[in-house]
């Protein structure tokens, strides 16, 4: 009888969730690694603290419990909703606990001490984000639900900032000393990323339409745009300094408009040039993939070239064009960071200042908003593409 018992056993026992094993491993590694780093001031080397030293005993116990619970949920085959709830709850606990750790580790009244999240915190955060992303995929959330989730996440984040739970964290101390600069550079970053996108759409869409019609122009135009794409960004900034400097001096009014060899103008121009290829290529591809019969019918029923373009070809190309917009926006948000190297402003200002001062908190002050912005832009545009495409096959 023994063999038959052995055979039926696996049916009763809980199967392991494959991705859950990875999440649990990350949780284990995260819990074992330093949770926070304490530094006497912003540039000296820090002392890493594991979570049970960084947090008072009750909170440390809470974190240990949270890690165990999250690992248990992700390992077993639990429904996607339960996994999502676990990921969200764990992320909230983690966010609160790092603030508490910062509060507890900072000696009272010490204005120079810095507490920053350490490898353990980031690993735990990564684990919860995997669990979150995976359960969102399993739930097959529609585009509107994903936008709502993003809005809720942003609201929770803003609430955490406003409530002051994180105010003792090093990155927010860096922020506190340069709040007005931060918002100015945030504005500059957005102008660079979104403005160059808008400029690339204004040029790339008509250019795409043009080379979709005049097939002879297609190869040279796309080859040129491709070549631009291969120039490293710093090199492109460098290349643009000389001509823009010349224009600034010799073209009346150019300097008054802010065109200089260095600064925002070459950064804007470089981002614009990089954006042209995805915008143009996706417009051409979008127009090309309109079914041949549909275009033939449009011809045969007497639509003029313009009517065909605006009422048939562009609407059918819209999902592909929007995908191009998504690529460009996410790429520009990241690349606008480099603009700071030539005085173009943006979040890169903090990254490069931080690098210069070997102040990791300052680097984070530039890097984190950039990542969050790119992430949010990707979610919004993905959802938009789906909403636009959703109405048809």
């Amino acid at each position, binding site marked *: 009888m023994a063999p038959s018992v052995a055979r039926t056993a696996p049916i009763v026992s809980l199967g392991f969730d494959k991705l859950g094993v990875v999440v649990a491993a990350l949780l284990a590694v995260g819990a074992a690694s330093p949770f926070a780093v304490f530094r006497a001031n912003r540039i000296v080397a820090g002392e890493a603290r594991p979570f049970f030293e960084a947090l008072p005993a009750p909170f440390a116990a809470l974190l240990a419990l949270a890690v165990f619970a999250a690992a248990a949920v992700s390992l077993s085959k639990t429904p996607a909703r339960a996994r999502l709830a676990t990921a969200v709850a764990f992320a909230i606990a983690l966010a609160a606990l790092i603030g508490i750790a910062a509060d507890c580790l900072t000696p009272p009244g010490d204005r120079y001490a810095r507490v920053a999240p350490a490898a353990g915190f980031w690993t735990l955060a990564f684990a919860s984000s995997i669990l979150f992303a995976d359960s969102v995929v399993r739930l097959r959330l529609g585009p509107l639900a994903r936008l709502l989730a993003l809005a809720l996440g942003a609201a929770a984040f803003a609430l955490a900032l406003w409530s002051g739970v994180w105010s003792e964290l090093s990155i927010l101390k860096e922020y506190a000393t340069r709040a007005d600069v931060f918002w100015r550079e945030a504005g500059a970053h957005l102008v660079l990323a979104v403005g160059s996108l808008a400029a690339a759409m204004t040029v790339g869409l008509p250019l795409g339409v043009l080379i979709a019609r005049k097939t002879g122009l297609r190869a040279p135009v796309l080859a040129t745009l491709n070549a631009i794409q291969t120039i490293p960004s710093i090199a492109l900034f460098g290349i643009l300094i000389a001509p823009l400097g010349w224009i600034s001096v010799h073209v009346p009014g150019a300097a008054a408009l802010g065109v200089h060899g260095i600064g925002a103008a070459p950064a804007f121009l470089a981002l614009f040039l990089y954006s042209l290829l995805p915008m143009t290529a996706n417009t051409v591809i979008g127009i090309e993939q309109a*079914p041949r*019969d549909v275009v*033939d019918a449009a011809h045969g*029923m007497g*639509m003029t070239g313009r*009517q065909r373009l605006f009422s048939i070809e562009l609407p059918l190309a819209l999902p592909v064009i929007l995908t191009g917009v998504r690529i460009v926006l996410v790429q520009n948000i990241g690349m606008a960071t480099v603009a700071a190297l030539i005085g173009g402003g943006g979040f890169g200002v903090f990254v490069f200042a931080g690098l210069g001062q070997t102040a990791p908190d300052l680097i984070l002050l530039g890097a984190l908003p950039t990542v969050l912005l790119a992430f949010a832009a990707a979610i919004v545009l993905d959802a938009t593409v789906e909403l636009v495409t959703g*109405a048809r096959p």
Partner: protein
Amino acid sequence: MIAIEGLTKVYGSEVAVDDVSMIVEAGDLTVVVGASGAGKSTLMRMVNRLIEPTAGRVLIDGEDAAGLPVHELRRRIGYAIQNHGLFPHRTVAQNIATVPTLLGWDRRRIAARVEDLLRLFQLDPATFARRFPHELSGGQQQRVGVARALAAEPKLLLMDEPFGALDPLVRAKAQDDLKAIQRQLSTTIILVTHDMEEAIRLGDRIAVMDAGKLIQYAPPAEILVHPATPFIGALIGIGDRPFRLLSLETAAQEVEPGEAEGAAVAADTDLREVLAELLWSRRAAAPVAGRDGRVIGRVTLARLIERAGTPT
């Protein structure tokens, strides 16, 4: 009336359409038939100038098609194609309204026309007007495609393999419907197909093309009885000839006085089907019932056999 005069299209060294002249009478359904590459689509596309001819001209009711702005010309001519070419991002109603909208009809007139056409093609407006093309079956898509082509009440309708994508049962129904609608609206139709069976079934006249040339242009019966070349004979299929000839006539045309046993055949049944019925039920004659169901006479096997051979 459509007069095609010396129409020629040359691509490089290849002659796609070679000096074709023919006249399509108003209200006729003319089928252009030929193998693929015979130039039949090119010929048709020169009528609404989707392809500009190298030489020759097309006169529509005496007016040279080349003299009109090309968009105006096309809006006057209905156009239906094999894979229907419906706009996937527009509803059925919006698709049908395409040409009336281009012509600037007022909204109420367009809505009324769309509704009439949907009813004509047996599609309930309440159910179908707001659907998207991908929510329809192949047969429904095809009907919407033809409805769209007829929307602006064109006097001439061009159809390029309109039934090519349909399965046989749906195709037969679509062909019958087209014939009925054509009679009702008395639209002149030029239809392109590679299928001789379809040509014989639908055509008032058949134009057979081969290698860019028009090799015979005649009513179906004449093509069957006197194919101009062995190639046309092959297209018809020698073995099917008697049956195809029978399929051109209906029971009503061969009815004679007298009585017969068994179930009656309807007067509008074609003779090929009557023959099949007689063979299957082992009868020498069958009663013929008129539209009202009353027996108006009989049709005999002997008469059918006589009609199935070459006229002497």
